[in-house]
């Protein structure tokens, strides 16, 4: 293995070295020239693609030649894949002045070969890796490179064959004399860069196609053609409109025998041809537009789509009018020619020939007399405006109305807050609260007794039922009084020298000012009532005090509330921290205590 130390890109990049580059003559050729009658035209895009294609040839060769190797059947290995790996390894290892050494590349490439055929011996893996690497360098050839032949068209139309020399991996020597590998620009560009493309992507295909069309000027050609056709369509429409307008006035004034049919035929032919052509354009360009991502190309395509769509729309309009044209003619002919003659008989005046044209020809003074005579008759009569004197005077004396530039003031809306009507009337509240207020702290009463009393006070009126319901609800509420709050309030009331606490702060539950809390207790007695069911609660009033002196208060309740539960609850709930939890508990219990039957 020799090591040619010259830099590869200096000689082999055609763009940097035009004199030695056989394709250099194409650089100046303008692309997209649509040469008439010629087979091809100078197109450096085509040359570029042919060169890129040639760069992949050595890789394909590897797979084609692997069967011909002696000693073993190596067809199981995917050689092109290994070659790409090798180029990648070299490329990754390349920094600014160094690449990878042979050993490095082989060390990394051998496991990859082993992975493809794990049962083969390790020596074979190494042999494959070395073979691939040698072939990428093209060790066997004299200049350790590749070449490909491609053809271009000379500006005068001649076909020319040209040769493209290239290398993929080159061997270079560093200052210490050690040999290392670098990938050439061509290899990096094509095999690392360009091939890394999603070949199934419609978007990429659209981009490439659009780019091609734009570069060759095809897009603007299509646009110009579409615009010209649209212009022609507008002209036809205008001619047709003028003819139809004349026809509506007078059928005989338009030549429907030759001129208009010819016009219609011509226009229809135009519409047909353009419609087919432009729909084809529309179908394709619309697809490019939708899948392209580059904003500039997308816009170019979108512009063309807009124009062509407008053209198609106008063609369609024209076609519809063309089809109607003869119907208009027939209808007008029926109306104008076969209409019954005027009942009055006699011929009218030819206003143009007999009046207008002679009048125009007269001197201005005489023409004014003639036209003035016509004027009086033509405009008819008009009742003279004569205001009443009183109205006139009023109108003249009326001061001008001054307008406020800001307009009339906006009336301020009166908004009233809407409240839900109370569920229970005042009478029911009075009865229920009076009954509860009258409770002796030392003598709790049964709910049944309270209900009976309420009904008695209500005296059979609807208010009695209402009061009874309210009473039940209040009693239920009293099963879990908010003792903690009542306690705080009691303290405040005591400190405030007997100032009454805000009533109603605890909701509808009535309190004797500040100290006595309504409390209901279930002692197991069932309620016997026509309207309600559940427990016949004991309803009484208690005073909440601090824990150190619970005994007296318990006595107040305990006198009749012999139930141990009640005492426990009282004691527990005196503790503010536990009050809420107990409250919730009690409420749940209470809910089960009384229910409407």
């Amino acid at each position, binding site marked *: 293995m020799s090591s040619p130390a010259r830099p590869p890109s200096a000689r082999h990049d055609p763009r940097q070295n035009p004199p030695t580059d056989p394709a250099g003559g194409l650089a100046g050729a303008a692309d997209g020239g649509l040469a008439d009658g010629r087979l091809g035209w100078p197109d450096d895009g085509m040359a570029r693609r042919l060169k890129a294609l040639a760069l992949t040839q050595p890789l394909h060769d590897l797979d084609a030649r692997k069967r011909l190797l002696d000693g073993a059947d190596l067809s199981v290995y995917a050689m092109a894949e290994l070659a790409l790996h090798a180029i990648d390894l070299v490329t990754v290892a390349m920094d600014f002045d160094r690449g990878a050494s042979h050993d490095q590349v082989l060390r990394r490439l051998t496991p990859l070969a082993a992975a493809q055929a794990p049962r083969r011996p390790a020596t074979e893996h190494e042999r494959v890796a070395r073979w691939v690497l040698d072939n990428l360098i093209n060790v066997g050839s004299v200049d350790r490179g590749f070449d490909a032949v491609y053809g271009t068209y000379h500006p005068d139309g001649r076909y020319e064959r040209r040769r493209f020399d290239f290398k993929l991996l080159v061997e270079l020597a560093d200052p210490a004399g050690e040999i290392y590998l670098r990938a050439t620009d061509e290899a990096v560009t094509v095999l690392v860069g360009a091939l890394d493309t999603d070949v199934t992507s419609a978007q990429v295909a659209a981009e490439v196609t659009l780019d091609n069309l734009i570069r060759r000027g095809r897009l603007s050609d299509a646009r110009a053609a579409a615009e010209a056709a649209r*212009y022609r369509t507008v*002209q*036809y429409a*205008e*001619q047709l409109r*003028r*003819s139809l*307008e*004349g026809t509506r*006035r*007078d059928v*005989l*004034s*338009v030549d429907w025998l030759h001129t*208009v049919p010819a*016009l219609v035929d011509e226009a229809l032919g135009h519409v047909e041809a353009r419609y087919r052509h432009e729909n084809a354009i529309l179908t394709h360009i619309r697809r490019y537009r939708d899948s392209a991502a580059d904003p500039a190309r997308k816009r170019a395509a979108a512009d063309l789509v807009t124009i062509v769509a407008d053209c198609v729309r106008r063609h369609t309009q024209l076609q519809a009018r063309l089809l109607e044209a003869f119907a208009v003619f027939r209808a007008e002919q029926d109306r104008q020619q076969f*209409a019954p*003659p*005027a*009942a*009055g*008989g*006699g*011929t*009218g*005046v*030819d*206003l*143009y*020939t*007999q*009046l*207008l*044209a*002679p*009048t*125009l*020809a*007269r*001197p*201005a*003074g005489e*023409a*004014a*007399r*003639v*036209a*003035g*005579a*016509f*004027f*009086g*008759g*033509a*405009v*008819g*009569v*008009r*009742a*003279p405006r004569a205001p009443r004197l009183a109205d006139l005077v009023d109108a003249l004396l009326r001061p001008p109305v001054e307008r406020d530039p800001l307009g009339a003031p906006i009336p301020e809306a009166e908004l009233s807050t809407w409240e839900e009507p109370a569920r229970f009337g005042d009478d029911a509240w009075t009865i229920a609260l009076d009954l509860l207020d009258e409770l002796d702290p030392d003598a709790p009463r049964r709910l049944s007794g309270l209900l009976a009393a309420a009904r008695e006070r209500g005296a059979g009126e609807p208010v009695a039922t209402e009061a009874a319901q309210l009473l039940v609800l209040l009693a239920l509420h009293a099963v879990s009084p908010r003792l903690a709050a009542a306690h705080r309030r009691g303290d405040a009331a005591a400190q405030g020298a007997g100032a009454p606490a805000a009533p109603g702060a605890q909701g509808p539950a009535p309190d004797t000012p500040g100290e006595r809390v309504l409390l209901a207790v279930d002692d197991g007695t069932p309620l016997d009532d026509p309207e309600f069911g559940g427990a016949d609660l004991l309803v009484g009033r208690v005073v909440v005090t601090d824990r150190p002196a619970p005994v007296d208060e318990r006595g107040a309740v305990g006198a009749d509330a012999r139930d141990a539960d009640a005492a426990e609850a009282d004691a527990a709930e005196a503790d503010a921290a536990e009050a809420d939890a107990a409250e919730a508990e009690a409420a749940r219990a209470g809910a089960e205590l009384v229910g409407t039957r």
Partner: protein
Amino acid sequence: MSGDGEAGAPAPGAPGRAPVGAVARDAAELIARGLRPRLVPARDSRYRELVGRYLREPGFAELTHAVADGLGIVVLDVSERAGLVAGGLADSAFAVRIGDYARRAGGEHRAADRMLHALAQLAVAALAFPRPADLTDASYVGRVSVDGVDAFVREATRLLEARTSGPDPLLDGADGAPPPDGPAADEPRLEAAWRLYARRPATGTTRDSRRLAGSTTGVIARAMGFLVESGCLVPVGEEGGGTFRTTPRYQVQVRELAADAAMEELLTLGVVTVAGPDGGLRVVPAVPDLLDAGAPGDGAGDPARPSAPETGASRQATDGPDAPEPADV
């Protein structure tokens, strides 16, 4: 309904006079409705009833004519479609005079403006009823637009110009036509009417971007607006500077009164023109060219040419529309 049952009769005194007074009142009411230009029998049941009575009862018709005559009005026609169409006698309080119509024009252009305003009315009618038969066919409805009328008159002036500058200016030249070579500068009333029209700009904008009232389209638009107020035209669209259709009332007025009055004036001037039955207007299919489509207003109007007796002259004129143009450019 007969006059016997009229409860609203104003004179209940003598039994013999009441019916006559009621009938006269009805006749006057019919005329009063006819004087409201935009009212048509189709939209007013009382009007319809009175028109029906006019058509059925000769005595009522006679009385209507008598009442109208006393007011200085001529009943031109009474029909179910148009109602009562009246024309004012020259000294009637109901007649509209060109002097009142073109009152605002003043100064040196007063006479010219008055003439142009009157001419515009004539041109509108000429394009609205292009054939003689259109005036007599009661079902005919004409369509005119402001730009169309202007283009039409300008084409007519172009033909007149071609004729006066042409080799054979003797068609009307014998009896007092202007000299063929240009207008007389010192006597504006002797300048041909078409020159006045041709000299006016077709359109223009004022500083506050309204239509120039003195331009020809301004004059024509005013004429058409006035005809709309008079119940003679009905606007149908904005295209062409404003497009209108004719009403039966307009047809009657032009046919029965205006055309005759103008003919009479021309007759006193010694001008008699013979017309063919198809009218003098033709639509000339324009040769399609690019400039044409670019400026649709230019050729939208009907290029007019005089009828049969003058075919030679008109063909010469239409074939060479740009013959006089290069001389001007």
